[in-house]
């Protein structure tokens, strides 16, 4: 069991993760089609006059009106930091890169260990904030089920166990086993649960005709 989780299941998890994402993307493009009519350009894109730095800043601040940066700035900042750390921390962790190097003789640049430690701590704090929102904010509680807590656990568990393993606070052997297992569970579940918003966040941009869109919403279901 231990050998399987720490050996073959890692490759299986990576393959399921990659093939799952490819499958979802291919299905998405098969289910959607190109649209003949596309949205007209935005007024700010039509206006090609030269602007001063002040005007650029003004225009930028103006575009923030009515966006999440104005309606819920705290959550927007926390969720942005959380998602960046979520990608950056595991990719540039020294321990992971040593394993990559041993396996494929390929590795990415690594952060110094204290940096990775801080990034992990940031992820855990953000995770605790999300959990607090789910528990105490009535508007989030209204749409929360047990599934949401499980998915939050799946997303946070690899970082929590990784943090514990790095500091060797509990039995290292057990914690590192749980770390590997939870990482595999996360990779396998990403394409098939709501964690799939990792991919669909970008794919849904093909329908949107205004800001933050790809190809000005030229696709339709």
């Amino acid at each position, binding site marked *: 069991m231990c050998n399987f989780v720490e050996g073959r299941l890692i490759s299986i998890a990576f393959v399921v993760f990659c093939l799952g994402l490819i499958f979802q993307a291919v299905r998405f493009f098969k289910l959607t089609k190109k649209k003949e009519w596309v949205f007209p350009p935005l007024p700010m894109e039509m206006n090609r006059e030269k602007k001063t730095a002040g005007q650029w800043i003004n225009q930028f601040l103006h575009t923030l009106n009515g966006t999440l940066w104005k309606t819920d700035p705290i959550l927007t900042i926390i969720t942005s930091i959380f998602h960046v750390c979520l990608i950056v921390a595991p990719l540039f962790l020294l321990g992971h890169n040593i394993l990559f190097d041993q396996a494929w003789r390929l590795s990415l640049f690594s952060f110094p260990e204290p940096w990775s430690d801080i990034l992990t701590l940031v992820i855990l704090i953000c995770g605790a904030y999300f959990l607090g929102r789910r528990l105490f904010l009535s508007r*989030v509680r209204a749409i929360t089920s047990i599934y949401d807590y499980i998915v939050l656990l799946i997303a946070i568990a690899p970082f929590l166990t990784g943090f514990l393993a790095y500091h060797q606070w509990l039995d290292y052997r057990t914690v590192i086993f749980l770390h590997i297992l939870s990482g595999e569970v996360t990779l396998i579940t990403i394409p098939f649960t709501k964690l*799939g918003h990792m991919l669909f966040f970008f794919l849904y941009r093909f329908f949107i005709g205004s800001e933050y869109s790809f190809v000005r919403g030229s696709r339709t279901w």
Partner: protein
Amino acid sequence: MTHQEVKPVETKKIRELLDRQKGKMKRYLSFCAHCSLCAESCFLYMAHDKDPQYMPSYKVIHSLGKLYKKRGNVDRKFLMEMKGIVWRNCVLCGRCYCPIGIHVPSMIAFARSICRSQDVYPQLDEVSSESWL
């Protein structure tokens, strides 16, 4: 009781309709992160003292979401509740905003079509106790 409340539900027809848009709607429903960030974009939510039942995500999850979960096996009572959600709690102004990019209005519109297929719709020409206008 009005005829809307007593007519039997054709679950087969509902299932047929659900299957027709399954690819789109299931993808929208299952990749909703349940973050509640769409709340403030709904003017009805703001106008009703930030009552969670006016959140776009709440309206979708408790109408279309439940229909897919129950695979169309619903009773008339459920459809009547759904009527309140998709007509009274939403005016389909299309201004709701999802950070992930989920198109909420198309889901509400689809939920309305399913209600209409079962003869459930607001009868604004009849003054009755169910009128909310």
